[in-house]
């Protein structure tokens, strides 16, 4: 058998990196840079009508054509990245953090805490999400904090259900019993003992939920209830320019492609995260 030397255990861990995952990461990083440097990258201000024509084709002055008012499409997509990425990321982080923390707590605590929380969130998830969003926005008006908070509320119950189902299996393991016998507090049990064992599926779920949020936000904007003009997220851009569809205008195709690349990239990346190589006997 191979002899273990101390050098093999001290060596920096290596990772198995998958090409598809890296492709996904590259696209995400690209969009993050676009969102971060938006005002510096955009050739024209967001609301200015710069083209003589509307639904203009791609040209040297307007790389991605112009929209229904003759505004530069490239600038609008670059600015839109901020809204789409920012709102969706904030909402998905809130939804998954709340859902996963509550789900793990319910699974570990059990009893009435679990029952009350589960029934309450079941009731929440029985409300159709789009209707709920429409009602909230028409009641309190559309602003970015409202959008973020509303999207987070809509997607928390699903995340909770998912995390709880995973954590229930972990909570029945002997190592949790031992931690309980030791007298560990809830915080230690959920963060140190449960979370590391469910983090893989939870991240996959986060990826999927991000996509749903991007799509719901785009849907809301499409209906005119999302980000308000003259600013527009990608879904809003599709709606504004939907009349250009018969003219095959780039103004309607390109924001759709932007939404597609981002959502697919997030899922490619999360499903192909680098795996630490744990084969140490070399």
């Amino acid at each position, binding site marked *: 058998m191979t002899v273990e030397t101390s050098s093999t255990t001290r060596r920096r861990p290596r990772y198995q990196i998958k090409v598809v995952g890296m492709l996904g990461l590259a696209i995400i990083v690209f969009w993050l840079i676009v969102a971060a440097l938006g005002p510096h990258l955009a050739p024209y201000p967001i609301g200015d009508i710069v083209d003589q024509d509307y639904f203009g084709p791609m040209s040297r002055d307007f790389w991605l054509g112009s929209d229904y008012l003759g505004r530069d499409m490239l600038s609008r997509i670059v600015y839109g990245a901020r809204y789409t990425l920012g709102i969706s990321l904030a909402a998905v982080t809130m939804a998954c953090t709340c859902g996963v923390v509550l789900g793990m707590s319910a699974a570990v605590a059990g009893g009435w805490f679990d029952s009350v929380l589960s029934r309450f969130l079941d009731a929440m998830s029985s409300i159709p999400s789009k209707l709920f969003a429409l009602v909230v926005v028409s009641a309190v008006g559309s602003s970015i904090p409202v959008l973020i908070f509303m999207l987070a509320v809509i997607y928390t119950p699903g995340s909770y259900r998912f995390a709880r189902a995973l954590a229930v299996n972990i909570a029945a393991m002997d190592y949790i*019993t031992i931690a309980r016998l*030791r*007298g560990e507090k809830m915080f230690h049990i959920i963060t140190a*003992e449960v979370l*590391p064992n469910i983090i893989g599926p939870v991240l996959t779920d986060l990826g999927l939920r991000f996509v749903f949020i991007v799509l719901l936000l785009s849907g809301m904007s499409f209906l005119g209830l999302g980000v308000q003009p003259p600013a527009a997220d990608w879904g809003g851009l599709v709606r504004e320019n939907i009349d250009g569809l018969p003219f095959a205008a780039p103004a309607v195709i390109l924001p759709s492609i932007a939404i597609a690349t981002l959502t697919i990239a997030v899922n490619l990346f999360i499903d192909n995260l680098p795996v630490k190589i744990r*084969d140490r006997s070399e």
Partner: protein
Amino acid sequence: MANLVEIRGLKVEAKTDANRRIEIVKDVDLDLVPGEIVALIGESGSGKTTIALTLMGHTRTGCSISAGSVMVDGQDVVQMSEQQRSRLRGAVVSYVPQSAALAFNPAKAIMDQVIEVTQIHGIMPAEEARQRAIELFRALSLPNPETIGERYPHQVSGGQLQRLAAAMALIANPKIVIFDEPTTALDVTTQIEVLRAFKDVMRRAGAAAIYVSHDLAVVAQLADRIAVLRNGEVQEMGQTVQILEQARHPYTRELIAAFEPHRAPVVLNEIDERRPLLDVENVVAGYGWSKIDSSLLVKAVDNVSLQLYEGRNLGIVGESGCGKSTLACAISGILPAVSGHIIFDGRELGPGYKERTAQQKREMQIVFQYADAALNPARSIDDILGRPLAFYHGLTGEAQSKRINALLDMVRLPTSLRGRRPGELSGGQKQRVNFARALAAEPKLIICDEVTSALDTVVVAAIIDLLRELQQELSLSYIFISHDLSMVQAICDKIVVMYQGKAVEELAVENMTQPQHPYTQLLFSSVPKLDPNWLDSLARERPILTA
């Protein structure tokens, strides 16, 4: 006679996550003549199941046959297409898995599953297959052979399910049956019935068999020849009697030696009769508490009393379902006892662990059967051992690191394992880490719940030696809960035998081998012996006990 199976120069490779190839079976030759039973014996990881599975042309995920030939009934399964192999499986070569409970589909009646293979291969009409299945059920001495097939898997016992799995394997008249540790998960008393049924039915069917096991005594009852494996190589091969009596290879001798538990001369320390370390008085525990008539639906532990003195060891034995693990849960407070008293170190403990003080919880540690489930797979050994040190003793940084090294040294593990995760350790190493974690608390009492039943014989002997040494160094007391009598006899000075929730007999060190209670006698006589004639010499009708 022509060989039914000829394995020549078989090599099986596995691929690690760093894309490195490891040979897990190295150049194995094996023959099998019709009607013969050959046992493959060795510790876990020796490649015994891997070799047996190649007879069906199957390797587990990530493994592949890299060289050699496996001739089954004149055809080489290595060269076969997957389609040809599936024609072979079940019809020519069949398989009895270790856990029949996992091999049966819980949603289908047993009969449909038993005869399924004859329908897939179109061997016989369904009605004929059913008749044959009933004959097999009878041959395997299953109760109600005519109607047992109509039941569902959860409606029969574990031993019966294992026999039904054998019927499933034999239904299509295969030439070779692979038994993969079929009795490892069973109690000794059940194991006898299953072994006897296997032996009878194999004799009648005239099929050849490969019997994979790590238990030499079980294998001795059935096999004509034994192949001893280690590290993917055949170390020694010969007739059963020859292997048992004139083992040549040192590893085989070690296996046989591990079988005879070497009882160290017991030096019993002086004890204070009036002050036991643990005094359990009339404890009742179970499941399904009903508030209406304030009683338990299932009384798993019924009025059990026992005493344990400092520096002594107590064994609790019995078959599965006798309440021994529930008793451990009641003592440790995982399952609060409904009535009775648990007095530990002079103070009465609360029934549930939440009602006990931090010191009481620290001084009584429990070590569970499955180290896999008891160690968090996502955390390193460092974290697993560091946490109780930080929690109980407030050790951090350098002091904690030193103590972890000392603990690993105590359980004879190299400190280079600190960065690893439990999944990267062997079964024996995991169980040692499990002990090290209990020791980190600096307890007075360790409750060991079946700690050795998932381990190989040789490893068990090493763990017992370790526990004995630790006891002397740290003045610990142990409670051993086990169905493995020889292990308990090797280390305990008092044994409590449990049967249907009651403590039926208490054996002290002097009369440990002369039980009085009929159940204890049955239990003791059920432990397989290395003698190949042991099974046949047992009384045909074993006493049936009713409480």
